[in-house]
């Protein structure tokens, strides 16, 4: 074990920090869940791509730097510390991209990855359906073969970024005879395909961060299937694994938030109240613990290991930590916490967003079941 960074890693960190300091917008961009903000965030993705920072862990040929997970974590730490904009390309770069590299054809890699890294094509994810939320396996949307094309019908919901994204990915039932996890196939398609209707859904803060997508005889060529026919579930689970595991919520996000909370405590809290101080200290410890846990996990992956159901432990941990960090911030803010357009807007927005954490990417109740069933080998529930 050696927790010192190598010289190369230190140099990589310095390079990332220098570029970010020189290029991060002075003013925060408008929310990427607004039309204007989305456009500005797309430009930011392009700017990062031009400097090869948009997908550092990707191979060079697709616009990355071939950086290993450790370097990726270092970049993420610098990224969050710099106050850089949120990643509107996240669904693609962190979730779909790695999946395409794992199971995609060479044609698909060439076709989708560079435009994904550059932000020219922003991807929306379309997992859930009105009756397939926690119970994702009860997918009802169908894809029927017609010549060398597929005809898609059905409805997806909670599709993040879909309001303004260019393409989307999701799973559809291609074998009507099969049930549950079987007979599903993973499709990629442009959101402007004839027959697709997108209805944005306003979330807790009023912005439209996700949407419903209606498929009405949408025609998609065979080539847009990712992975094998009728094997969509395992492809989707690989993607979901990335989501719950290290890639969606790098620890830097929480160590940075914990550091901001400490600053807020210094400037606004009653120092005689050790109850609050201990609570702030506790979340700081939790954030450190999550960071260390992630470094341990990625070392394991660098050694050729994989993460399975353990990813559910991460998802519960970071989502509950995020809520706790923001609860404490609002407690410190007191009456200011009721105002959402003021100097503390980021904390109030962050609180509202944090409440989605225990729900999306599989509710924490489902994650606890997964841990019990697959890590502790308890008998499946009725």
């Amino acid at each position, binding site marked *: 074990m050696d927790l010192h960074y190598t010289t190369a890693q230190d140099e990589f960190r310095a390079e990332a920090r220098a570029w970010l300091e020189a290029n991060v917008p002075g003013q925060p961009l408008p929310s990427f869940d607004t039309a204007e903000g989305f456009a500005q965030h797309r430009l930011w993705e392009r700017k990062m791509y031009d400097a090869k920072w948009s997908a550092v862990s990707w191979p060079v040929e697709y616009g990355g730097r071939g950086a290993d997970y450790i370097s990726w974590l270092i970049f993420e730490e610098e990224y969050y510390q710099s106050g850089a904009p949120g990643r509107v390309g996240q669904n693609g770069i962190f979730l779909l991209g790695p999946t395409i590299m794992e199971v995609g054809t060479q044609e698909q890699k060439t076709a989708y990855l560079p435009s994904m890294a550059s932000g020219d094509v922003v991807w929306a994810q379309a997992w859930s359906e009105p009756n397939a*939320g926690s119970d994702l396996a009860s997918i009802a949307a169908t894809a029927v073969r017609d010549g060398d094309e597929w005809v898609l019908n059905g409805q997806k919901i909670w599709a993040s970024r879909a309001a303004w994204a260019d393409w989307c990915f999701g799973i559809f039932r291609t074998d009507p005879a099969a049930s549950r996890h079987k007979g599903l196939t993973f499709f990629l398609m442009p959101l402007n395909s004839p027959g697709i209707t997108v209805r944005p859904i306003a979330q807790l803060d009023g912005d439209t961060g996700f949407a419903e997508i209606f498929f009405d005889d949408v025609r998609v060529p065979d080539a847009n299937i990712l992975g094998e026919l009728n094997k969509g579930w395992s492809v989707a689970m690989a993607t979901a694994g990335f989501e719950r595991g290290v890639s969606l919520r790098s620890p830097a996000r929480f160590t940075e938030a914990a550091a901001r909370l400490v600053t807020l405590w210094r400037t606004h809290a009653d120092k005689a109240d050790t109850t609050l101080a201990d609570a702030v200290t506790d979340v700081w410890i939790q954030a450190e613990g999550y960071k260390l846990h992630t470094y341990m996990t990625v070392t394991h992956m660098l050694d050729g290991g994989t993460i399975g159901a353990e990813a559910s432990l991460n998802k519960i941990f970071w989502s509950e930590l995020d809520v706790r960090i923001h609860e404490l911030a609002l407690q410190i803010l007191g*009456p200011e916490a009721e105002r959402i357009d003021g100097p503390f807007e980021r904390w109030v927005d962050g609180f509202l967003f944090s409440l989605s954490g225990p729900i999306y990417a599989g509710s924490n*109740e489902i994650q606890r079941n997964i841990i019990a069933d697959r890590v502790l080998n308890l008998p499946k529930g009725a």
Partner: protein
Amino acid sequence: MRFAFTTEQREFAAALRALLANEFPASALREVWDSGTGFSAPLWEQLGDMGVLGAMMAEADGGLGMRPIDTVLLFVELGRAAVPGPIIEHVAVAGPALSGTPYAAGVADGSTMVTTALGGSPYVAHASAAALILNDNGVLSGYAVTPVEGIDGGRLLGVVSGGTIDDLVFDAMAARLRGSLAAAAYLVGISEHMISVAADYARVREQFGKPIGSFQAVKHLMSDALLKVEFAKPALFKAAWGLSVGDGTAALDVSMAKALASEAAYRTSRNTMQVHGAIGYTWEADLHLYMKKAWALQRAWGDAPSHRRIVRQHVLGI
């Protein structure tokens, strides 16, 4: 020793509950949010006609001369419907303070809407809706309001400037206690409503071929919320009684009530949202109209930690 409400007290609350159920469903509350006015003029008028707005003012002023114990159940009902506007400020706080003043008649019938600025907040809630603001110096009128965006569309915030102050000597401490008590009652009402909405949803929403309410994880989220609310109520009612009879520990009891009610309301908002899943995170679902009121009121009139510190001072002396 008799820990129960009178028939009259229960019947008045039941009548108010019936009125609000008919006249002010979630759709009406949503209209108020969309209107940007922060209150419902027709509802305000109906509450005036019912005597609610002047309930705690002297009969000589056109009020009902009711005490906190007579009105605490009313605030539970007002909370259940998340009635927007300065209902706590006008009825529980300013009303009694303005009894016997030239403002009394207008306040009692509701034709003069009053809010208050007795808290430590830089923002005044309902200032734009109200005609008068009761602050520690007296009654402020003719003021200007610079609006700021608050989280609750039924509780508009603003920074107040200018205006003329009509000096008034009143018991500001007692006024704050009435405000904290009414807010605690209101929070209990919202909490009961959020629980009932989430229970309805859990009965009909199906996953894995069963209503989600049949899963223990959901059952326990709901039970934990109910537990918090049920054990906040007795402290709330005792505090209302204490304020009414001038009991020695009334101030302490109000702090206990507000601490318990604030925590119960927040826990209920979290658990009921979790039961709703993604739909609970949307603007379209009605739940957020009630959650956001709970989040605002859990801090207004003193949050749980500050009220617990008051109890701590009494129990531990630090």
